[in-house]
C-alpha cells in the first residue's frame, strides 16, 4: 500500500501513489534534505517544501527499478548512518549529520566505489531532486537567480561586465 506523507504535526498531507514509506523512513528523507539544504539566513528544504517535492518526484517520475533502489538505498543509508554516528540519523546532531552526509558526498566522487547497497543511488536521487526542486522553486527563481517569464529582449552582444542575473 502506498503511503501518505505527514506535516510536522503528524497529519497526512501528501498521498503517494507508488512508494511505501514508513514514518521512520519519511523522517530520514526529511532530515537528509534539510541537511543537504539547511535553513541558514535563507530558507531550507523543509521551509520550501523540498522534502515533499523529493518524495513526489520519486513517486511519480522515477521508474519502478529506481523506486526499488530508493527504498533499498534508504535502508542502507539508515544502517550506515547508525553505525557511523552511533545513533539513528534523525537523532544525530547537525554536526554529526553534516559529517556523515559529507562523507557520502565524498564517496560519490570516488570512481572505484561500488554501490552494492544502493546507498549512493538513493543519495543521488535525493540530492538531485533536492537541487532540482530548489533551483526551480519560486523562492530561488525570484530571489536568487531570477527567472523571467517574459524577457522581452534578446541582446546578442552583451558586455560580460554588465552581466548580473
Amino acid at each position, binding site marked *: 500500500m502506498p503511503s501518505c506523507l505527514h506535516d510536522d504535526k503528524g497529519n497526512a498531507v501528501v498521498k503517494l501513489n507508488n512508494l511505501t514509506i514508513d514514518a521512520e523512513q519519511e523522517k530520514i528523507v526529511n532530515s537528509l534534505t534539510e541537511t543537504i539544504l539547511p535553513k541558514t539566513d535563507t530558507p531550507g528544504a523543509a521551509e520550501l517544501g523540498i522534502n515533499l517535492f523529493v518524495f513526489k518526484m520519486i513517486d511519480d517520475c522515477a*521508474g519502478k527499478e529506481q523506486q526499488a533502489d530508493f527504498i533499498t538505498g534508504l535502508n542502507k543509508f539508515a544502517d550506515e548512518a547508525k553505525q557511523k554516528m552511533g545513533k539513528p540519523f534523525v537523532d544525530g546532531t547537525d554536526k554529526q549529520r*553534516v559529517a556523515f552526509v*559529507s562523507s557520502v558526498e565524498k564517496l560519490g566522487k570516488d570512481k572505484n566505489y561500488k554501490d552494492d547497497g544502493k546507498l549512493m543511488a538513493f543519495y543521488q536521487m535525493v540530492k538531485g531532486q533536492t537541487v532540482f526542486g*530548489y533551483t526551480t522553486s519560486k523562492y530561488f527563481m525570484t530571489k536568487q*537567480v531570477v527567472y523571467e517569464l*517574459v524577457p522581452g*529582449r534578446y*541582446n*546578442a552582444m552583451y558586455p560580460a561586465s554588465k552581466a548580473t542575473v
Partner: protein
Amino acid sequence: MANLNIDSVKERTFDAIIIGSGISGGWAAKEFTGKGLKTLVLERGRDVKHLKDYPTTNLYPWEFPHHGVVPDAIQKANPVVNRCYAFGEDAMHFFVKDAEHPYVQEKPFDWIRGYQTGGKSLLWARQTQRWSNFDFEGPARDGFAVDWPIRYEDIAPWYSYVEKFAGISGNRDGLAELPDGEFLPPFPLNAVETYFSNHLKKNYKNRHVISARCAHLSKPNQIHLDQGRGQCQERTLCQRGCPFGGYFSSNSSTIPWALKTGLCTLRPHSVVESIIYDDKKGKATGVRVIDANTKEAIEYYAPVIFVNAAALNSNLILLNSKSQRFPNGLGNDSGTLGKYIAFHNYSAHMNAEYDGAKEWTTDGRNPAGGGYIPRFRNVYKQETNFLRGYAAGLYAYRGHKQSSDGIGQELKDNLARKELGGWSVGSHMMGETIPKESNFVTLDNSLKDPWGIPQLRISVDYDDNDEKMKKDYIEQMTEMFTSAGFTNIQTFTDHRAPGLDIHEMGGVRMGKDPKTSMLDKWHRLHSCPNVYVTDGASMTSTSCQNPSLTYMAFTARAVDHAVSELKKGNV
C-alpha cells in the same frame, strides 16, 4: 447515412473542403475564404482556440506539479511521443499519445502527431528557409526520384506572399543556395556565432553561418497587428502556445483570419475516412467523415477538396479512398501512392567549448535558436561519395558557473553563483534523404484504428547514403570546430528512428509524368484534378531546409489555381 434529405445535403455542401487545420490547411482556409468561397475545414482533433486554450502558457516552472518533468507512467505508456524533444509537462496536452492512434511499424518509425486545431503548427520549431533551384533541380541533376514539375521561379512570388503575412525574421544574406525573402529584422548572432561565421568566411568557400530565419515577429507590421498578433517577447516557451501571437501558427493567424470572414466552418472531432469519388461524374464529390466522439459517419460535399492532413495521414486518406475507378487508392494510376517516403536525417550533433570572446555574453533569450549553416556539400556539383547534403544548426551560449557540488551553505552558494562560465558551442545536422520506392506506407489488411479506419503500416529506414552523409557532417564540423580553436569537441550519433525529425514527406509526390507521380505542377491529382494535396505528402524530394514555409507557399499557390479553375468552370 442518416438524413439524406435535400436540405441536409445543402447544409453539408460547401465551395471547398479542406482536410486538416495545421500549417498548410490553415493557409488553404485563409486563401479560400479570402477569395470569397464558402469553406469547410475538417479537423480530426479538438478545437484549440488562440489564447483561450493555452492552459500552461503563463505558468512558471514551479507551478507545474513536477516542475516540467513528464511522470514516469506517462513516459512508459508513450515510448514514441516521449522521444520528442518538445514533449514536456508544459506541452504534452498538444501531442497525440501513442495509444490514441495506433499504427504498425514494419520498421521503427516515431510518428509524432498533434491532433487539434492548428495541428503541429502550435509545436513546430519555427525555422523557415526558402528552397532554391539547387533543391528543385536536385532529383533531375542527381538522377533520383523524378523531376520536380516546378522551379524556384514558380514558387518565389508565393514565398513572398506567405512570408509577409506569417512574419519571418532574417537577414538578407545574398546566398544563391538559400534565397532571401521578405524579412522582419533578424535575431542577431552572438559573439561566438559571429566569430565562427567570420572564421568560415575567411577559410572556406561557400560556407556560412547566418542568423536562423524563423517565423517570429521580431518587429510586427500592420498586417500582423491586424491579425491580433504582437511582437515576440523572447520567452522561448512557444510549444505552450504564445499569448502574444509572437510566432506563426494556424491558431494565432490563418484560422482566426479565415473565421473572421464568416465564410469558414471549422468542424473539429472530424476524422476523414475517405474522399468520395463518383464513378459516373468522374470526379471527387466530397469526403466521408467519422465523428470522433459519436463515431457517426457524415458526408460533406464540395467541388474542390484540399488534402492537408499532414504527410502520412494524407497518404492514409488517399489509400483508403477506393472506388471502381481507383481500386488502389484515389488517383493512384501510377502505383506510386504511399511510396517514395523520405524525411530528414537529424541523427548527429556535437558540442564544444570556446575559450575566447570573454568580454561578451548574451542577455535575454534567442527565439531563433542561434545560427544556421546552409548546405555547402554538392551544391554546384557532385563532390562527395554521397548524394545531396545537409544544413546544420550552430549555436553558442554562455552560462553561469553554477554547480551542485557540496552540501549546506556551500551548495547554496554553488547553485547561486553568478560568475560567468566559458562559452559552449553546439551544432546538429539536418540531412536530405533520398526518396526510394522501398520506403513506403500501406494500409494494414486487418488492423483498424478506433474510428474503423485501417491502420497505417510504415516501412521507412535510413540507407547507406545517410550513413556516409552523417560521417561527413561529423568530419567537416570537427574540422571547422578545430580550426576555429574550439576545444573539448564531442560528437554524438544516435540511432533515432525516422520520424523523430517530424519532417516526414512524400508518398503523393509531384511530377510531370502521370505514370510516375501522383500530382501535377498545381498539386492536383493527375487523374482526379479536383483534389489537391499541398502538405508534406506532395514532396518529390526533401532537400534539407525546414519544410513548413514551402508547404505554406505551395498551398497559397494551389488555392489561387483552384479558385481560377472554379471561376473558369473547369472544376
